[in-house]
């Protein structure tokens, strides 16, 4: 009887330790899983220049996101002005195929999302925050027959003078698709 109780207790303790270790490993594994995909895109752009194309790869998203929200993506941009010059009255506008699926947003006070206009001027050496929210239909992603999903160009203009400032080409791809 005594032996049986000792064995039972040893089994309980062993099971306890096993569950404990497995759970700790599971939590660390969850942390590791978090690093295996990329679901947010951010970049720094020069408002007054023609920037290099920004490539957003939907193929690097995790499986849950691919299944539930395949066409949703936020591209966070930090735009900065040249070190010298006049304040810029910035208007941001998307052109090209992405235009139909994108909305612009900003945390900057006084930003008019419908027109893409910043109410306050962008001073030299200062930055502005702009988010391009993409909402593509799932079919465009799931049934795409080539890696290139869509593309467009973000155009910055000075709305006081009407002059063009700079551009940022945006390419939306899905690296998992065969061309």
């Amino acid at each position, binding site marked *: 009887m005594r032996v049986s109780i000792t064995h039972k*207790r040893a089994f309980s*303790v062993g099971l306890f330790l096993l569950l404990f270790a497995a759970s700790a490993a599971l939590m660390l594994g969850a942390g590791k899983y978090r*690093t295996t995909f990329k679901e947010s895109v951010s970049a720094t752009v020069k408002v007054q220049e023609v920037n290099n194309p920004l490539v957003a790869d939907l193929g690097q998203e995790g*499986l849950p996101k691919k299944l539930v929200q395949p066409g949703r993506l936020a591209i966070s941009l930090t735009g900065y002005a040249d070190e010298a010059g006049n304040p810029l009255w910035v208007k941001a506008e998307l052109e090209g195929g992405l235009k139909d699926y994108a909305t612009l947003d900003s945390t900057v006070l006084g930003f008019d999302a419908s027109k893409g206009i910043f109410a306050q001027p962008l001073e030299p050496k200062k930055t502005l925050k702009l988010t391009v929210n993409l909402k593509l239909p799932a079919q465009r992603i799931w049934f795409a027959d080539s890696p290139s999903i869509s593309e467009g160009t973000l155009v910055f203009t000075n709305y006081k003078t009407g002059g063009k400032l700079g551009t940022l080409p945006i390419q939306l791809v899905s690296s998992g698709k065969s061309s």
Partner: protein
Amino acid sequence: MKQAKRFTIQRGLWYVGGFILIYAPFAVFQRALAALFGFKPRFDIHDICFRMGLSYTISGKGIALWSTTGIAFILILGTALLAGPLFCGKLCAAGGLSEYVSKLVPERFKINWQKWINPVPVRYGMMTGFLLAPFLQLSVICAYCNYTDLQRLVSAGIARDMGIWTSTTILTTFVWLILLGAFTKGGRGYCAYLCPIGAIQSLLHAIGAKFNFTYKLKFASDKCASCGNCAKECPMHALRVSKTENGKKELAYERLVCLTCSQCVHSCPKSALAYSRGIDGWSANKDKPGQKQDHPRPVIAHESEIA
């Protein structure tokens, strides 16, 4: 049972209060501290994130104690030591939501995870992993946070747009609200197995409960009729009616899982359970003549047997 039902509603109102207290758009607690002490406000759950506080404290990054986060952190740990995990039991809207959502699902569709998997090693294993993660350059704080998910759900409701969710957010919401919530008996699987804040509070409560001046769940074994009402009502399955080897029924209590929500107290027809100060009485239960003491986890009686 009427009293238990009434208390369930009352508890639900507490969780609504907890929501108003710390979640946007209300965030009354954060606003009050900002008004009183001039703290820099953010006015959502992240302002007082206990998980960030815990992780930063352990990893050496530290938190500013004279801040909304610091005050909330001290309050939650202090109350846990002196009165149990009251935040979980009375105010945590995220835990409350999954519990109350599960009440909408018929019992036959729910899984009793605790019957198969002891939550204590899992809960503390998860907490250990959570605390070790920053040392390995891994981030689990916000990625698997149900507080954040609730805030997101509320924001989505207000904006009428789900916004952009990450894979980990989607996974966490599924696990917290669906798998371990709606389809789990008691609806608190996330709390029982995954929440590091609940775990640390219960640990502090287990230490605090050793002192007479602290509040705890007390048991008067001489009054207990072993009816099992308390065990059935406990959303965390911290109470269980078990059968000892000589066939007697006894009430087993796992403080390391208890929320101190007091649902059991209000479901006991014999007033054998109470939440107050003094000696807890659970050891007296073990010492009852004719009952064996050397079984770490007794054989659990099925609900049908209890009935």
